[in-house]
């Protein structure tokens, strides 16, 4: 009997998404049963990595079979879910899913910042968004998408925030690494432009001879002023 099919049967009949840990416990319990056979015994101490590999293989097989459902891993737990294109009929069958109202734009922005930069303090979020985030933080914390995770080792030891498992479930993410463009946004490196443009080309704000003081070897005066403080 193949491991992946045992897993398939488990997930097929499970009442909730199953995590690797829960699956491992099922295997241990099956082996502990009195009538456990050799296969069950051999799987008693199955490793997490073996389970993950088998589950991923199973998921790939379902994917390539292009069925109306697939095996998904959300917040570290596996379950069968329908493909989104079948929603019209499923909605008719089970009714609209009871979901809280969709998140507002500020809430999504704040969540995105926290998700990619956690743990992060409120002040750091405000720094990025350029606005006060008190009300938004309140909303997303009430919805259980974000929680306080610790304190920053800076003056005042402000609380830091991170996303919850519910956040992953809400967006159908396997884990934080599953966030779109995760590696890029975790740490944004912004290339410094050679010379930011401030003055409208052709519209000198100072007499050309004055501009020349800071820009002797520069090109056309009035179009390519150097940065004010003369950056290196």
């Amino acid at each position, binding site marked *: 009997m193949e491991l992946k099919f045992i897993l398939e049967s488990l997930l097929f009949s499970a009442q909730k998404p199953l995590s690797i840990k829960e699956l491992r416990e099922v295997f241990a319990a099956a082996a502990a049963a009195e009538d456990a056979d050799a296969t069950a015994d051999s799987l008693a101490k199955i490793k997490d990595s073996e389970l993950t590999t088998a589950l991923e293989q199973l998921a790939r097989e379902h994917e390539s079979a292009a069925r109306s459902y697939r095996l998904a891993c959300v917040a570290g737990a596996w379950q069968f879910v329908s493909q989104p294109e079948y*929603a019209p009929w499923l909605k008719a069958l089970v009714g609209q899913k009871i*979901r809280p109202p969709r998140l507002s734009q500020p809430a999504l922005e704040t969540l995105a910042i926290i998700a990619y930069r956690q743990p992060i303090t409120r002040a750091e979020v405000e720094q990025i968004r350029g606005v006060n985030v008190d009300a938004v933080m309140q909303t997303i914390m009430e919805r259980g998408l974000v929680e306080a995770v610790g304190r920053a080792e800076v003056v005042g030891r402000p609380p830091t925030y991170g996303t919850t498992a519910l956040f992953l479930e809400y967006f159908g993410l396997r884990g934080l690494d599953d966030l779109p463009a995760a590696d890029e946004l975790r740490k944004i490196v912004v290339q410094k432009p050679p010379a930011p443009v401030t003055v409208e080309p052709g519209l000198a704000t100072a007499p050309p001879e004055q501009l020349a003081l800071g820009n002797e070897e520069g090109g056309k005066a009035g179009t390519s002023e150097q940065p004010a403080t003369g950056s290196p």
Partner: protein
Amino acid sequence: MAEYKVQFEVFEGPLDLLLYLIKKEEVDIYQVNLTKLATQFIEYIDLMRQFDLEIAGEFLVMASTLMYIKSRELLPVDQQVAAEGEEEGEDPRWELIRQLVEYKKFKDAAAQLQTLEARQENIFPRLPGKLEFESAAPPPKPDVSIFDLLNAVNVVLRRFEKRDDSREIFEDKWTVSEKIEFILKAIAERGRVLFVELFESAASRSEVVCTFLALLELIRLKQLVCAQDEEFGEIEIRRVENAAPTVGTPAPAAPELPREGGSDPAHPGAPPEPVLHQTVQPGEAPESPRQS
């Protein structure tokens, strides 16, 4: 006067407005002309004022930053005075552009999250329906704060205040480690214990204190969690699901495995997605093993 049709977008903040203005110009953020942008930004604020919209302080801060950048431009380099506290060579324009680029990236990320959110609404999990009524009772609210615990222990201690007038003085025979074992044993036997039950047998103030310290220690060691079903309800204590066994703890009996994984008496597994959202509470998931 001609009739004006005003299309007024709502901006999340000054950065959002700046991005909008840059987009309208159809230029790259790095290529943007900040002087022109400053003029447009201030025009916009004037517009907001005309409409009697409340202008958030952040917009004014941004307007002044832009004015500062613009005014700096008017001076030749050698006559510019570095603002106090400003690092040499730090260009306010660069700082603003950096902030704009960063904000833009997160705004894009937010848009992607929004797509995921919409997509997730159309995904239905394969779940037997019967969990619906099982989770009718809201799962216990986790996170009992230290203050809740202190309040609770104060209530217990009040019991001893009354008979303060005359009492026997005896040696304190309680130790925290004994009490740790006592609590672990009680939890191992019954699965979950009410806060007040722990102190039922306590005969003295010091015993209550010992038990309480033991409880705090176990919470600190992440062996136990406290939960409260409702505001001001009874505080309930139970084991952390995947706690590392402590020395001296009765080893978890074999039958505990399926029970732990399968269903938990008061919280029958993590509810299925729809139900879960129905009873959304802050920090609902912690009990669910999925989090681990």
